Every structure is written in C-alpha cells, then in structure tokens.
C-alpha cells in the first residue's frame, strides 16, 4: 500500500505563560492509504495536537507533513482551508451538528464549499445519509434524534464530500456501549468498503479493537514497535 500521510521530524510546542511545553520533538510516522488507526494515550500525550496537525488545522513548528505526496505544512491559511474541505472529514466527540439545521442540511454543509449544483448536492446528501442508515431522518433536527443518530449524521457530513481521510476525535466518547459499537462498525465499513483512511483518537480500548492497528502515544512519542508494525 502507498503512504497517504508521512510526518518527518515534526516538532510542535506551545508556550503557556513563560513555560514552553514541547508536544512533539522530531516525530516521524507514516500512515498508509486505507489504514484504520486507533491512537490511544493519556491526557496531554499529544493526541488532539496530532489530529490538528494531520487535519491541517494546526501547523508544525518544524518538520514536514506530506499528504498524498503534497507538503501541507507549506500551504497558506486559505490553501489549507481549501485543502481540508476536499481531503479531510472530521468526526467529533459531541457530533458538532448545527442545531437549527436538519440532518440533510447539516450533511450538506461541506458541499456548500464546492461548485456542485443544488440538485447534485441533494443527491450526494441522500447517498451519505443512506450509507449511515439515516435516509428516513433527513428532515429531523439534531434535538429530535438520539446521540447515536446524531453521530451518524456527523459521519455522513464527514464523508459527503468523499474525502480520503477521516479524523475522529473520541467519536464514541459520548455514547453507550451498544451505540458506540454500532458507530464503530459503521466506521469499519467505511474503511473496508469505501477505502477511507481513518485515524481515530480514543481512550476506549474496546473502541480501539475496531481499528486495524493501535498506536499508543505518550509524551509525544509513539511506541516504536507499534509504529514499525
């Protein structure tokens, strides 16, 4: 398989008050296209920072991030925003749906950034909702749906523009076990049948079992043996 993502000697730190907090010091890793990776680790280990870097919502201080052989760390803010809208789908712990919009309208949001016609947008929205099994809830608003259904809408929103990469930040952290397993099965299906590359941050070891591989991150470093596997 070819690499979808390559991180080379990535450095990232934050300044809090007078203190410099180093998150990553020369982090190197690669993720193949079609992989489903679960990233686990204690709070403060750098999981969310890594997702921000991979998703182009933050920049490294040093080092390179390649996506499909393209250096995204060199993109301007506007280019990065545009790149994100085409290549990355995000799935959040608390779904992050717009409460006043219907499920279909929420799913349509990323398509408003494309040049697709309204008709084509509607077709794509219907397909995305069908994939997550919510075609009959298209006109419902988030408050009229369960947590699991809302997360399915969020997944539909993440895949509607057909990105190569899905970034999931604790996608089942707000759900009961049964519902969480349903959501994870959906992600597994997206990975297996649609070839989506998925990187999922989770604290939940049960959730991590749905991934093809699990990487443990601690103090900004991965377990080298897991990375090499």
């Amino acid at each position, binding site marked *: 398989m070819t690499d979808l993502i390559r991180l080379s000697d990535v450095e990232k730190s934050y300044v809090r008050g007078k203190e410099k907090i180093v998150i990553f010091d020369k982090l190197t890793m690669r993720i193949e296209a079609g992989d489903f990776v679960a990233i686990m680790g204690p709070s403060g280990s750098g999981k969310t920072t890594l997702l*921000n870097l991979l998703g182009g*919502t933050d920049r490294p201080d040093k080092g390179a991030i390649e996506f499909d052989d393209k250096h995204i760390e060199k993109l301007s803010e506007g280019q990065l925003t545009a790149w994100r809208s*085409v290549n990355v789908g*995000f799935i959040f712990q608390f779904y992050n749906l717009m409460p*006043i919009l219907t499920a279909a309208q929420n799913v349509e*949001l990323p398509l408003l*950034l494309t*040049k697709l016609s309204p008709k084509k947008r509607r077709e794509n929205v219907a397909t995305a909702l069908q994939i997550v099994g919510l075609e009959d809830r298209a006109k419902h608003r988030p408050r009229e749906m369960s947590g699991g259904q809302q997360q399915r809408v969020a997944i539909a929103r993440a895949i509607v523009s057909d990105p190569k990469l899905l970034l999931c930040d604790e996608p089942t952290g707000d759900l009961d076990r049964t519902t969480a397993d349903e959501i994870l099965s959906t992600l597994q299906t997206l990975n297996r049948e649609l070839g989506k590359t998925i990187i999922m941050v989770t604290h939940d070891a049960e959730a991590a079992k749905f991934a093809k591989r699990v990487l443990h991150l601690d103090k900004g470093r991965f377990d080298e043996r897991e990375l090499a596997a």
Partner: protein
Amino acid sequence: MASLLDQIGAVTSLNLRSIPQRGAMSVASVVAVALTIAVLLFFLALANGLRSTVEGSGSEDVAIAIREGSNAELNSVVTRDQLAILATGPNVAQRDGVPVVSGELLVIVDGVKRSSGTNANMPFRGIGPEGLALRRSVNITQGRMFSPGTNEIVVGAGLLREFSGFEFGQTIRIRGGEWQVVGVFEAPGMVFESELWADIAVTQSLFNRPNVYQTMRIQLTSPAAVQAYRTWAEGDTRLNGLEILSERDYYARQASQSTQGFMAIAWILGIMMAIGALAGALNTMYSSVAARASEIATLRIIGFSGWAAFFGTMVEALALSALGGVLGVIIAFVAFNGRTTSTLGSGFTQLVFKFDLSPSIIATAIVVAIIIGLFGGLLPGIRAARQRPQLELASG
C-alpha cells in the same frame, strides 16, 4: 471552491436563523437601538417641524423692514415717519389705490397651556388694515376679521389648539383691557397660526406703546422686486438703520436660530444613546460569538473561511440594528409624527408646530442604526474570524 459569497450566505443564514436561541439578548439589543432611534427622531422631527413652520411662513414677494441687528421683531423699532416713506417705495402693490403695507407691533401676553396648565408667553400682533391682505395663505375659518379701531381679536387655530381661554366668542382680559374674540384663522404650517391678531392702533393704545412699530411688511409686485426695493431703501438716508429683506429670508434666518438648539440636543443625546446602544450591540454580538464558538470552530474546520465567519457576524449585528432602527421609526410615527406641540420661538413666545418626520430624517436615523450595527459587529466579527479551527475549540 465555491465563492466566498456562498460561504458568507451559508454562515449568515445559520447566524440569523439561530437568533431566537439568543432571544433575550437579541431583543435587548434591538430595543436599545429602537429607543435610541426614537429619541433621535423625536428631536430631529421637532427641529424639522419647527424649521418647516418658521421657514414656510414667509412670502418671497413680501418685503420686511426691520431694525438692523435685530434678531427678532421684538427687538426692532420702525418709526411712523419711516413707515410712511417705506410705503412710497418702488413696486409696492396697490389695492384700490392704497399700498398693501402693514406696520406691525408684536407684544407678549400670557396664556395657559392646555397640556400642562402652566403659563406661557404668546405673541399678540397688532397689524395694519392691509395686514390680512398681504398674508394670502391666511383664512378666517370661524367668525370674521376684527374691525379696525375696536377691541376685537382673531386667534390662530394652532394657538387655540394648544392654549385655553381664547375660544371663539369669549371676552378676555389682557393687561387690564377687555378683548372680544371675533374670529379664528388658519395659516397651515406657518408661525402666524400661533398668534393673536388685533388692530395696530388699538394694540399700541392698550399696550401703552403709542406710535411704536417694530416691523413694516410691504407687498411687492413680484419676488424679483425685493432687490430693487432694498436698493431704493439703502439709497434713502431717512431709512438708515433699517434692514430690508424678503419675508422668506427673514423667516429662514429665524428658522436657523430656532432649530440650532434642538439639532444640537438631538445629536448630543442621540450620540450618547447610540454609544449606549453600541455597548449593548457589542455585548450581544460578543455573546453570540461566544455562544457559537463551537459552531464557528466546526465550520472553520470543515473548510469555511474566516471571512465567512466575520461577515456572518457582521450581518447578524446589522440585521439586529436595522430591525431596531425600523422599530424606532415605527415608534416615532405612532408616538409623535404629525402631533402638534409648542415651544419657545425666537421671540420668546410660544410657537405651535407639528412634529415632522421627513424621509431624509428617517434615512438619517436608519443610517445611525446601521452605523451602530457596523461598529457593534466589527470587533465580535474579527473575534469570530480569528477563532482557530481546532478540534479542542470545536469540542467546546
């Protein structure tokens, strides 16, 4: 990528549709702007109504002779000899061989305001026999004109509406003399409607001002004749110290003096209230941005630009302010537009006029509302635009 306009449209739609979720704060902001606009309109309509009334009182083809340096008729003096000379000037209109001129005396009398029951100064004008003829817009609507040489008065309809004790048919006591109200006249939109009129000679006598005149009004044959008349008067040394100008120009000058105060109050108060409303708008919009922080971060992560977040916030602020502005205009229309009121005119006498909300005043008020919205949305909009598209922010 879709155009920035599409993104702005989508974010703006989201913002506007979610306003009800921030109902109380949004309503408070709208009300603050509405009250600001209503108060601003109150004073602007007051000033405009006053100006319209005073300015509209003068005729272009009537010349007025007044003592140089006199701001108002009350400060002026014109002698009987000068009166006689002024009547012989060029292009003076004649009626039955008699020049249409009127030597006049304005005195102040007390009246009682119907609205408050308090005393107020009112203008009592002694006019010559041709005084009515050279005021072509004046109509006797009840009773008749006073008879020369008698203690009869006619009352302006505006004065009658605002002050009590001058009803048609009544006998009233002024300065020890008794006067019979024999008529009511209308002079729509003119200062004369706030006056009492009586015969000049009787007025001079009963107010103990024998042979005193303050102004002379001269009906000329055309507006263009005023300049020639002025040139003639300036060339006659016996008329030294008198200023000749058209009645229209005289009242335009009066209007400027009368309305300056109201305009100043309108803008000082308006700006102070606008600052208060601006603080409210800023508070509302900062709260809005804070309440939508997670939404904004989510949209930014999905790929919406900072400009979309900025303009979405700006449009929300503008929409709330514009709504407040429209509400303020509606309040102004319902509460006071067209209503009659009175105030102290330039001659220290009460002047009756109507609040006048002209289209330009309304446009000014709406512009003020929009400026409040612009400034109210600017900083919160920048905050929204600068919000980093990061996952921890999206997670709230």
